[in-house]
């Protein structure tokens, strides 16, 4: 399998505080990569570096390279807006816009000018909602407010909104932390299906979720990537003592 994203010598600062320290990491194409670690270890910061969402925070600075399909996304000529069409993001708390279900999904295609005709847009919205396993639940009420959905449906709507612009990579920042167990499992099922088409990076503090749902796992500790391996190996035979201590619940 190819590397979709390659991270080299990457460091990140909030003002004077170094949040990420000299990271090397490869994200495989069409796989689910989980990032685990205790709160404040930098895993979410790292995720937000992959589509440069941290650019919106003042006083931050990045060093090193992140190659996406071989191109450094931190190179000066990179169009950040276009980059984010290719590397989408799903947030910790479901954040549907206070608009109709249809308009939420159609938002991306509209702003990037993907669907010129109404019929194309309709098809794209349907495909995206089907892709997010939400179509059957909402097809009769596309004009209803997205805020009327339950949290699990809202999160799947946010996933539908993200895949509507046909990204290559989907970043998920603890997408299930606001969901109940049933909704969590449905999002995990969805992730496995999406992995056939997309590359997925998920941050989670739930180790069972990482073990259940991912192919690769990286363990972060205090801004460093302590260990990176296939999920199976990392959980069954961790190499670093710190990793073992964390996944068995003795540290963290």
């Amino acid at each position, binding site marked *: 399998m190819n590397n979709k994203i390659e991270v080299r010598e990457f460091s990140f600062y909030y003002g004077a505080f170094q949040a990420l320290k000299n990271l090397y990491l490869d994200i495989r194409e069409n796989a689910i990569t989980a990032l685990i670690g205790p709160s404040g270890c930098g895993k979410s910061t790292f995720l937000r570096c992959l589509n440069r969402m941290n650019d919106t925070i003042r006083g931050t600075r990045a060093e090193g390279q992140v190659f996406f399909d071989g191109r450094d996304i931190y190179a000066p000529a990179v169009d950040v807006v276009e980059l*984010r069409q290719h590397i989408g993001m799903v947030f910790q708390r479901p954040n549907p816009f206070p608009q109709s279900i249809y308009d939420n999904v159609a938002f991306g295609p509209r*702003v*990037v000018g993907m669907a010129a005709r109404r019929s194309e847009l309709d098809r794209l919205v349907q495909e995206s909602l089907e892709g997010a396993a939400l179509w059957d639940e909402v097809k009769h009420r596309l004009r209803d407010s997205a805020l009327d959905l339950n949290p699990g449906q809202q999160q799947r709507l946010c996933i539908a909104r993200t895949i509507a612009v046909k990204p290559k990579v989907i970043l998920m920042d603890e997408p299930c932390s606001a969901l109940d167990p049933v909704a969590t499992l449905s999002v995990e099922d969805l992730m496995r299906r999406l992995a056939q088409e997309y590359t997925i990076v998920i941050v989670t503090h739930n180790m069972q979720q990482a073990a259940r749902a991912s192919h690769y796992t990286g363990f972060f500790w205090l801004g460093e990537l302590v260990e990176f391996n296939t999920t199976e190996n990392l959980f069954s035979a961790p190499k670093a003592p710190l990793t073992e201590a964390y996944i068995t619940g003795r540290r963290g």
Partner: protein
Amino acid sequence: MAVVQKSSQIDAPTDATSQTNWGEWFIEGVIKVAGISSIVIIGLIFLFLLREGLPAFLDIPLRQLFGTRWYPIEDAFGMAPLLAGSLIVTVGAVVIALPLGLTTAIYMGEIAPPWQREILKPIIEVLAGIPSIVLGFLGWIALAPLIQRLGAPTGLTAFTGSLILAYMSLPTIISIAEDALYAVPKEYRGGALAIGATQWQSIWRVVLPAARPGLVIAVMLGIGRAIGETMAVMMVTGNAANIPSLGSGIFFQPVRTMTATIAAEMGEVAQGSLHYSTLFAIGIVLFVISFAINWLAGRLVGMKGMRRSRRGGML
């Protein structure tokens, strides 16, 4: 004070716990009286207006009351010129203040770096505190000659009034609109950017629609400020109670607003005369208009799909 004690006595027997807590009981009474008294006062104002103004509605046929001639000396009390004056001045003010106010709010809330916001915000609050008579004076001395030079027969026109009023309603519009934008959860902006929207697309398609109820209130309060203003307008609009002639020059002729009419003529009328009650009738019409604006604002805010989402940000 006597009222407070009276209400306390009424409450005491019905609420056993309050007997053990006199402080609580007292504060509750004070708050209750304050709350009810504001309602009572509004009611009394309206009753008083009705009492003084109703004779005009009864004694003057409606067609005449809303007719086109306002010559109190000849007993011609047609409000139409005054209504038209208020309308023209207010519409002009809104047309000027609305885009300026909203764009300023968007700039302050969404685009400006924090240090610029720190400077802009207090300045705008100071603007709100300038007495209207000072602005009227400025308009008279500085603005009117300028407008005359533009080719108007006189500098004291509806447009001059609109400019001053726009300036006066800007602080209201800006600060309320900015609060409305600030209340939009950060997650919406992040969500829009993360799909590949530009900052402007995120503002235009997500933030502004989400802030719409607050923005509507900002505009409505701005209009309310404009339509009720008296002093500044009286000084700069020329005070001619004529129906303005339609056409491109409509904003560049002297007009007289309802408020200015009341202020200018109230001192000279005999109490109880027809002229006197007609001035109160104008007050009633103003009252009704401001109620209508409030009602409209409520309707616009409560419209379908405008429900506010759960608030509260992460991080």
